[in-house]
């Protein structure tokens, strides 16, 4: 069969998994600058699933699309180092403040603009919002079916694909025709590491805006090797209606953000030796906490 055209949607996110003391400001809000910007973990797993398809069906291509500031091109390079063929950065100040609905509008326009595609793949959710909404919303806007929480790709046929998805208390195997959107679950395998040859090949890959800050040598390098160009699209390239973008295109508003307050308890210190533990367990049994 001929190769599949795969689009991977990915997001650069602050690493919220290890929020230490310095990442929280005194007023309880988050200091984003104190957190490293990373490839959203489940999006990276979606890339791996796309690469698995590419390994199995020669001639398949992977285009990675991300929306964000110029520095989000970092995750596009990360994808190129792992085997993606090309990348598109959607960037424009007019996207700022977009909620999931406005984001899915922009991403769906970008997917459409790439032309014909068979699969759109992305992580189930991003670790900065944990909403799991953008994938299904993009699918609806593209008017294609979705399969969420995918953990394994099964049989790949000319006209349809079989996947296994993870639910709270079980698994389900589904079959669907292309074009189709898949969101990939955290239980899917980790992404392969960077490939040394690809790292050398794409080391100088960058967007048009990034190139403006580069030295002459790199600019001529891009003239010789067009594959080093990371496509950059703005609102006008997408022919997007600004009413549906940013704050005006976002029906949800954040009214308030507050820190989580814990009740500090008067704790009893227990000695970690045999006697201390024995005493504690006796107490717990006596007070019917256990037993």
């Amino acid at each position, binding site marked *: 069969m001929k190769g599949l055209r795969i689009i991977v949607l990915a997001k650069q996110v*602050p690493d*919220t*998994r*290890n*929020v230490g003391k310095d*990442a929280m400001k005194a007023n*309880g809000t*988050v200091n984003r600058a104190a957190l490293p910007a990373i490839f959203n973990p489940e999006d990276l797993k979606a890339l791996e699933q796309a690469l698995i398809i590419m390994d199995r069906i020669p001639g398949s291509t992977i285009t990675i699309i991300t929306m964000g500031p110029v520095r989000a091109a970092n995750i596009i390079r990360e994808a190129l180092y792992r085997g993606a063929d090309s990348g598109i950065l959607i960037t424009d100040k007019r996207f700022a403040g977009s909620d*999931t*609905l406005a984001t*899915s509008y922009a991403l769906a326009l970008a997917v459409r603009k790439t032309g014909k595609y068979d699969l759109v793949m992305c992580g189930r959710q991003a670790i*900065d919002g*944990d*909403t*799991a*909404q953008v*994938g*299904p*919303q993009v699918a*609806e*806007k593209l008017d294609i*079916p*979705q*399969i*969420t929480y995918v953990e394994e790709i099964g049989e790949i046929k000319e006209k349809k694909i*079989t996947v296994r998805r993870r639910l*709270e*208390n*079980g*698994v389900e*195997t*589904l*079959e*669907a025709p292309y074009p189709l959107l898949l969101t990939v679950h*955290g239980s899917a395998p980790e992404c392969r590491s960077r490939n040394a040859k690809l790292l050398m090949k794409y080391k100088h890959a960058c967007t048009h805006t990034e190139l403006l800050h580069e030295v002459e040598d790199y600019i001529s390098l891009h003239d010789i090797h067009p594959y080093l160009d990371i496509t950059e699209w703005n609102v006008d390239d997408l022919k997007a209606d600004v009413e549906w973008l940013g704050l005006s295109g976002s*029906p*949800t*508003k*954040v*009214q*308030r*953000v*507050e*820190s*989580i307050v*814990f*009740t500090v*308890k008067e*704790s009893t210190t*227990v*000695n*970690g030796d*045999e006697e201390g*533990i*024995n005493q504690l367990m*006796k107490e717990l*049994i006596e007070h019917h*906490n*256990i*037993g």
Partner: protein
Amino acid sequence: MNNVIVYCEVHGKEIADVSFEILSRGRSLAGELNVKLEAIILGHKLDGVEKELYEYGVDIVHKGDHKYLAPYTTLPHASVVTGVFQKEKPRIGLFGATSVGRDIAPRISSKLKCGLTADCTELVIGDYLDKKNKKTYNDLLLQRRPAFGGNIIATIVTPDTLPQLATVREGVMKKEKPPTPKKGKTVNLDIDKYLSKSDLAVKIIERHIEKNKLNIKNSSIIVAGGYGVGSRENFDMLYELAHVLGGEVGGSRAAVDAGFIERDRQIGQTGVTVRPKLYIACGISGQIQHRAGMDKSAMIISINSDPEAPMNKIADYVITGDLSKIIPQMVKSYKENIK
């Protein structure tokens, strides 16, 4: 029109617990707004399910009974719910934040171009002042949810579009029936009218659903381990302690990410929220998102080599030391002292 509609999940013939929890909350929201509580329930062979819904105070049940609606697949359910929302024009639409609710709700919000808030832990009616446009909105649904990896709580509003859609986390709202059940009515939906051929594109080949394999949420004793446990093998000690105490084992996200324990045992804002009688935290430093998912436990014991672990501040008992000595000693002491 203008009512509160709850999408009820049904597995086989059984309505999901989370749906009853949301109906219970939905009833008080509807009461406050002086509107009706409605339910949508879609499946196959649903004879009699409406009675259970009336018991929770539902005024109107929209029932769709069709072979294409069970087991759940996204498109048929999304099309029917979207159609019902377009016709009924609810003010509020609520779903469980489950694999079903989180799959269908964003699809519907995109179709209706309305706001959706994921994973709410609290829903109240209140006012919202739009400072920029100096406009006050009354009686909005204030949707509170953990954000930013569960490290903060955000209140989200949807001022300008209807319905206001939200998914609600399982286990955070109390399931309670009103003293007297409603004498509600049921509208049988003509499903063929709502579905098109393209809605049947995705086919289920195989399903393996285990019934309540794991029930951390309802366990009264939880032994939970963090990154400090050190390895998957070391978790065996925790399983032994949980076993003798008659409890369940859970883990922090760090332990799950490190592969020490399965993801379905993850406790915290990004996992399951629990409130057992006794929570034994082993080698868990206590990130905000973890503590927020267990701080309502009646009693907390924190075992950690670091005396400054944030977990210790919310613990009733603090044991500083080596887990590999302390946990086996707890097992031993328990066995010696229990008669």
